């Protein structure tokens, strides 16, 4: 019990310090987060015009698409804010920068993941919140559902990213490959699941598990579809367990870069 409390205290301290570091340059912080907000707004503009012209697409309405954006942007935002190094892991592995984490008495994976915060991703989180306030169900039940959707989305984003970046342990330079996979997951999770058919749809629930994220507004927020929800939770847990195993298995193959580094 005391170990868990210690780990939690450590993670909390890392997050606090990351945020303090980001806030050191206030203007830059606001600009970076603001730009991500603007970036996401473009897609809201696109979908706004799209649904103005075509009110229903295979059962999806504008509210569902907005909530899909709230869940996806929130999920990827939380991943990059709280576990900001997930998206840089391939580089850390390929350049031998894990050494500094290996010698410290902390869980290696957790330590690596929480030691960076993406400032831009704070814009994603704010964007998600704004969309939820505008289009979401603001009752306690609705809020609970939204938080659950965010947790599922964050876990899928985080551990899928971890797996593709951990490929660097096995194939060396995996930056390009992991970048493409990550972008693929991100792109597919921001379009209605029901526009995909055949092999495309199969792929969304297997190779690139974006379907579990993009269907959350229908299968959880609009009404709970138990079979889908259990599958989404199962996928999130399987990715979590698989991701951790894949990372630690790969870590055994890691060879030090004999790099001198100091973490402050």
């Amino acid at each position: 019990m005391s170990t868990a409390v210690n780990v939690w205290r450590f993670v909390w301290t890392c997050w606090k310090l990351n945020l303090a570091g980001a806030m050191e340059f206030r203007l830059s912080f606001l600009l970076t987060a603001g730009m991500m907000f603007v970036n996401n707004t473009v897609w809201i503009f696109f979908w706004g015009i799209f649904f103005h012209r075509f009110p229903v697409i295979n059962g999806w309405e504008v509210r569902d698409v907005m909530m899909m954006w709230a869940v996806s942007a929130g999920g990827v935002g939380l991943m990059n804010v709280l576990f900001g190094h997930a998206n840089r892991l391939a580089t850390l592995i390929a350049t031998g920068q894990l050494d500094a984490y290996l010698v410290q008495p902390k869980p290696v994976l957790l330590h690596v993941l929480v030691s960076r915060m993406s400032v831009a991703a704070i814009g994603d989180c704010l964007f998600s919140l704004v969309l939820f306030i505008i289009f979401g169900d603001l009752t306690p039940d609705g809020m609970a559902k939204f938080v659950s959707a965010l947790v599922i989305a964050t876990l899928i984003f985080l551990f899928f990213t971890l797996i593709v970046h951990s490929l660097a342990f096995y194939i060396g330079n995996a930056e390009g490959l992991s970048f493409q996979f990550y972008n693929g997951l991100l792109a597919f999770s921001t379009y209605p699941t029901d526009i995909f058919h055949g092999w495309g749809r199969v792929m969304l629930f297997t190779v690139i598990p974006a379907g579990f994220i993009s269907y959350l507004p229908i299968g959880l927020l609009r009404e709970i579809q138990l079979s889908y929800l259990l599958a989404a939770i199962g996928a999130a847990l399987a990715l979590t367990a698989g991701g951790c195993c894949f990372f630690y298995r790969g870590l055994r193959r890691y060879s030090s870069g004999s790099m001198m580094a100091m973490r402050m």
Partner: protein
Amino acid sequence: MHGVRQRSTEGGRRGSRLAKLLKYAAVGKVTIRNHLAYVTDFFIRSIFLIIILYIFIQLWNTTFRGEGTELIAGYSFEQIIWYLIFAESFVIACPSLSTKIEEEVKSGDIGYKLARPVSYLWFHYAGYMSEVFIRMPINLAVGGMLGILVLGPPGFGWGWPGFLLVSVGAFTINFLLNMMLALCAFWVEETRGLEFVYHKFLFTVGGMLMPLELFPQVLQKVCAWLPFQAIVYFAARTAVSFDAEAMWRMLGTQAFWIAGLGAALMFIYRKGVSKLHVNGG
């Protein structure tokens, strides 16, 4: 005697103009050679283009089926997809001028660039045009492969040369607008944020994500007064729905914007250069 002197002065002017043209052509040639070395890299980067186009094909396929019509806002399914292939290939081909100029200002490289016997703006324009005309055909080849696989070979006829012609004006306007923002580096340290926001205008009111005919009427009227439509929308529309009369109108609109924005760019450049202090060397 006077006539001979006048003729020789005219000949000299023509020679100097030709020499200038050759100089910028050489800049373009060097840029092309530099970028040809990274063709494989460009192809790999185009993978994302395939993903996006695949998603849009699914989206519009579902939309057309849902609507049950052959045409939406005058576009068939094939035309919309090819429009997006051209538009995406066009936008992805544009390099970031803000990154370049910002680096030049921060590193002090600009001191050397300004001292060269070439115009700073024409130098960047020659490099920019060469780069986009290497990158765009590669993007088009990648996106076109997907288009041919899904829709079969397109029959655009005059749309191809029309697209090429309108592209020259479109890239020029994009260069002028982008350069105006990039030159803000003479006053402020970070200009990439401005460029980022500019790109978002290009994506939306510029018609990259969908043809402007799909916009609500009020928004279409607003877009008609903005320079953004003369970039992606004009080029992609000419390719997929060629109409000679409309193309000449588009070229006229582009000429108007090139003249206006060109003058504005010169003004900003002169103001900026007079303000610039380069230390060290």
